[in-house]
């Protein structure tokens, strides 16, 4: 791994730990409302200041890491799983299945993303889980398409053809050669989407589709901050920085990993 990437990897690790055990980073209760200290600017006591309820912003950002990152990650994982299944099915189960599935994907794509998420959330009720599901639904077609085209591409690959020659069954060939080699591009898409998904999930909580208050979530914190923009800049800045840094870390490390994979395969 190149030197330039070390800091980002570090960031990623820190964020992961934050999401896992936030208490390591702060002793302050993120939901403790201090009636006497609303919108206090950054200070020794409150490193990043306090929000409109006098809650410590630093603590909320630390505790916000889990929902903020988990929704996006969960969405990607769900989309990945569903997408691969559908994509492979479309590629393997013959023309009819392919047509049906591909058109269905078009349907999903044709409905505006946010509206679709909104519908899903409305059906399942608001919350982190449903937000993740909603995002997964919206982003699944991408994975399905890549998986499908990869499988189709590999089906005619010479080494797959050769493998048939050794007397493997169709399933065996798919398992031994098609899926492992299709994994590369699909995972590449996954790492790329992860950043986008984190941004997307924050957008959701921004419009109130995320986890419920008082849960600390970066997008939601930004949403709250709008009210007090004229009074306090810090609640409107730090959560945004958190999101951006997180996404950057994911992107850079992800890109590197992808290059590694490509390098190994071609």
């Amino acid at each position, binding site marked *: 791994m190149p030197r330039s990437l070390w800091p980002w990897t570090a960031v990623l690790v820190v964020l992961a730990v934050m999401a896992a055990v936030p208490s390591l980073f702060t002793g302050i209760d993120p939901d403790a409302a201090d009636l006497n200290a609303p919108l206090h600017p950054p200070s020794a006591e409150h490193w990043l200041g306090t929000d409109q309820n006098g809650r410590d912003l630093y603590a909320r950002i630390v505790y916000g890491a889990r929902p903020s990152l988990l929704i996006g990650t969960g969405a990607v994982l769900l989309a990945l799983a569903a997408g691969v299944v559908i994509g492979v099915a479309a590629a393997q189960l013959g023309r009819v299945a392919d047509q049906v599935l591909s058109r269905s994907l*078009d349907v999903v794509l044709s409905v505006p993303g946010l509206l679709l998420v909104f519908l899903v959330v409305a059906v399942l009720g608001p919350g982190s889980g449903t937000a993740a599901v909603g995002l997964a639904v919206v982003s699944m077609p991408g994975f399905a398409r890549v998986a499908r085209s990869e499988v189709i591409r590999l089906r005619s690959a010479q080494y797959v053809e050769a493998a048939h020659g050794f007397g493997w069954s169709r399933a065996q060939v798919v398992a031994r050669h098609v899926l492992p080699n299709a994994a590369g591009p699909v995972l590449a898409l996954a790492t790329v989407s992860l950043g986008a998904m984190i941004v997307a999930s924050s*957008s959701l909580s921004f419009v109130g589709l995320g986890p419920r208050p008082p849960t600390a979530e970066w997008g939601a914190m930004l949403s709250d901050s709008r009210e007090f923009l004229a009074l306090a800049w810090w609640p409107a800045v730090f959560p945004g920085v958190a*999101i951006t840094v997180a996404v950057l870390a994911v992107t850079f490390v992800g890109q590197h990993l992808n290059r590694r994979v490509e390098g190994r395969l071609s």
Partner: protein
Amino acid sequence: MAGVLKTSPAGAAAARNGRRSGRGRKTLVRLVLVRLAASAGVLWGAVTVTFVLLQVMPGSTADVLLARSAVGPEVRAAIIAEYGLDDPLPLQYLTYLGRIVRGEFGESYVLRRPVWDEIAAQLPGTLLLVATTLLATAVAAVVHGVVSANRRAWVRSLFASAESLVVALPPFWLGLLLLTVFSFTLHWFPAIGSSSPAGLVLPTAALAAGPAAVVAGVLREGLLRAMDEPFVVTARARGIGEAALRLRHVLRHALLPVTTLLGWIAGSLIGGAVIIEIVFSRQGIGRLALSAVANKDMPMVIAVVLVTAVAFVLVTIAVDILTWVIDPRTRDAGR
């Protein structure tokens, strides 16, 4: 390349009975027709999915509709009767489908107006924003991409990092910052939604930044890849200038992926502009749809879904046509 190999015998065959161009146009027509046919299915699917989702949403439509009201039983009954809210679902579905086919989108439960008037009132705002955003994206991307393309490796990576940064900015946050700085503080631009040129600047910027960065990256990759193609050496060996080389040869190749990408962006913007519209208090079809969903306003939601779905279909077809124009190889590919 594979595509080329696949199609070349066909092309040669066509060449032999030299009526290629004619058939080429035919392939385009066929392509478009096929797509349109398929898209009919897509639209139907979109409507159906939306209908189902709206039905499985908790809360009876009547209750949600009357949530904000104080009405006597007879009014409640009148409303339920008028919208056929207690008909069996299949019946509701079929009647509604029938209406749509006849082009009647009905009246909004909540706004009590023909949904069509409503959309007609809101769509322009969104389309305008989408248009300016696409324009900004394309221009910014091409300039940035071309400028950064023939530079040293480390300069390129610098550009690339900058792009990653822009992409990592949540658009709504960017919008918030722009609004605070340029509107609330500096008073350079209006603070609330207006379709005046000035009013479009900030939303467009907030919306276009991310896509522009992505496209610029793709474009640059494309340019670099194209520069490695053998025909570039050949062209140079003919003694043409670098400018001409980029203009006549390289750029077109790089534009192929960009076209597809722009199409995708356009499609996603029509529905995706909502958040920015909210931040900048612009009127738009997105906000219309969201509040409609919140109120289980079925006719409105489905109408919006239909409009955006049609837009999506048209955009994809437009992209296909563009690709057809830019890349002759696809013309003989059929589909």
